[in-house]
């Protein structure tokens, strides 16, 4: 399974994850389905619940696909919003940024 390693992909999230971004985000994630994914959320300033849903739906899908799904980097607003809305992503955070 040499290809498995090569399939590691990354996705940088937009600063504003609002209603308009939800569909775009889903499409971006769908295109990466089947690959290990490292998400860069370091630029995120605002997260709406819809995008949080998309991100968590993807986490479910990736889990079903047995692919890795991690937040490699995350901004403070991103982490705090997720915590505020009770969405636990602690287990998805890359080791380096876990607290």
């Amino acid at each position, binding site marked *: 399974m040499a290809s498995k390693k090569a399939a590691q992909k990354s996705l940088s999230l937009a600063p504003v994850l*609002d*209603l308009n971004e*939800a*569909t775009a*985000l*889903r499409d971006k*994630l*769908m295109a990466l*389905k089947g690959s290990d994914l490292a998400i860069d959320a370091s630029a995120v*300033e*605002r*997260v*709406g*619940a*819809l995008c*949080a*849903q*998309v991100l*968590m*739906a*993807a986490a*479910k*899908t990736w889990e*079903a696909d047995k692919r890795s799904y991690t937040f490699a980097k995350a901004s*403070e*607003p991103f982490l*705090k*919003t997720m*915590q*505020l*809305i*009770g*969405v*636990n992503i602690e287990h998805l955070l890359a080791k380096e940024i876990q607290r």
Partner: protein
Amino acid sequence: MDMNEIKEIFFQECEEQLAELESGLLKLNDGDRDPETVNAVFRAVHSIKGGAGAFGLDDLVSFAHVFETTLDCVRSNKLDPNQDVLKVMLKSADVLADLTNAARDGGGVDEARSKQLIRELEALANGEMPAASEAPAAKPAPALVATPVADDEGFQPIPFSFDDFGGEEKPVEPFAPTCEILFHPKRELYAKGNEATLLLRDLSRIGEMSIRCDMDSLPPLEDMNPEEAYFSWKISIATEKGEDGVRTVFEFAEWDCDLEVRTVEEDHEAEAGKDELPMQPVPFDLSILDDGDDDATGEADEPAAPLSSANTAAESNVVPIAAASRAEPSRSEARAAPAVQQAAAAANPAASAASAAAAAPTIRVDLDRVDRLINLVGELVINQAMLSQSVIENDNTGVSSINMGLEELQQLTREIQDSVMAIRAQPVKPVFQRMSRIVREIADVTGKSVRLITEGENTEVDKTVIDKLAEPLTHMIRNAVDHGLEAPEKREALGKNPEGTVRLTAKHRSGRIVIELADDGGGINREKVRQKAIDNDLIAADANLSDEEIDNLIFHAGFSTADKISDISGRGVGMDVVKRSIQALGGRITISSKPGQGSVFTMSLPLTLAVLDGMVVTVAGQTLVVPLTAIVETLQPEASAIHSFGASQRLISIRNSFCPLVDVGRILNFRSTQADPVDGVALLVESEGGGQRALMVDAIQGQRQVVIKSLEANYTHVPGIAAATILGDGRVALILDVDAVVAASRGQSLKQEISLAATG
């Protein structure tokens, strides 16, 4: 910008809205059923109410509210705006105007009238039709009858004040009950711009909370609709604001989510309520989610910055979007290559013209600024004239380039002057609109049915002229309805439409504005006028007067032809006053009347009061300017035409009639002895009474347009002098007040004058 300035803006806006309201109602009255007309009328009242509420003008608000409610019935087709309904509405518009004025200038309003109208409006809103017959004859209810105004449906204006910025510190309640919340947003919540994360943020601000997000319904990525609401939350919060405080947070979202809020009695229960999954505490500082600006959120708790300092910020922060968006089409036009893209270029201006028509770009400027500009331009005109003159005097070599330059300068100056004058020009519309109210009121009092037709209300004239026009016009309209139009029964008997017509028109004619007021009444009853004039000793019993001369008698002081002095026109103000005010504006008024068909008053006024066409004359070494409008003709008297009369009076015979000679130099005390008329020039002027006088001056220098400079403002009032001006050579010249000079010369009575004219 402070509250007073905004209030000033509000009142300005009220005036516009009131005009809009009235013209809309009048359109409806004429059978216009365009929904946009109804909407505009509704908006006008609505807008007044909105602003009035902000300033705590309660009387205005409650009347506007009732009015609005009734208009809303019209808007929703529950009430047919027939003539009876509109009669009530037009009166209500008048009261609304009164209330607005009272709110601005203080002073009272006819409370009985407004209460009566509130009752009538409410009756209309409740589907009761007004008693049609009651309307014209009904006198306003006595002021003492104070029926309580029906309550305005719990509508309570909250006065607006910037002081409210200081958050009212509520006493902190020590007890903080715990609430349990189930929050399940629907798709619509997000579609309408609400955001669950923000609601939860606000919730976390009112207390300590724990939260659990339920993601069970979340499908795999490929099956999900990214804009569907899948998450729901269970929250436990300890807040002193209680359930109500929680519900307030969800106020905007309530309809678009399932929300359950309940207070948990005991801590144990809260523990027990915790089911399988633990809730995450949300303890941290959330300020980072506020877009980094603490000041914006803090603002609600902090007192506002003093308004004076906010002033500059307020202005600099506005992005002039309107201007920018209008600039857009022209920019793209410029980019388009004109030859190649003719079609595109043609389409573009059309588009921009359409948007310009929708919102003609205007700016508001203080009148003071405009007047300062006008003054400066006046100086410029004088300066330019002086420069021209001195060049001509000192440079006889006639360097053509200088002369050409001067000519261009003169032309430019004239154009600047015209443009600046145009700034002050305003349509006569507001005055005309005011007249329709006057007509309504008099029609009501006299029991006559009158229709006012206005034409040319967009004709423009200097603002000062407009302002000064209202009074004489009001008086003339009153006269036209009170004296001109017959009572409905009489009209019907005469085979006329029982509804009388008064037509008010404005138009431009040869550099002046001409305003006509025509009625289709009985016309001037010449026999009656003549008899009255004889009774009042104005004319000799055997005087032989032309129709025109008889008609003009009504302009004499104290003349009233109504059988009894009525409330409306009999206030001791006659047509003589009207004529004087028109003349004071540099205008003339004439009347023509046809028995049985009505009368037409025609006023001709200058377009501006800042410049004047004058005849420059010399009197005893002094230079004077006589307004050209006053002069009928000029003539060189011959010795044979001069006749002495009494001790010092002289007459001049002109084409078989005699006209008193007025020695201007004597009247103004320029000289102590009478000048010999043969050495001078006679200016035949129309005098106040309608007769003519010959003003004696030494010589005529020429005609020119002069810039009027107020003497009162710069010096003091001088009898016989209307104003001053500066001539091209820098000399100050006085502008003659023709009427005052004639009045001062009046040695003989009107009766003699007319009989002489008649027998001559």
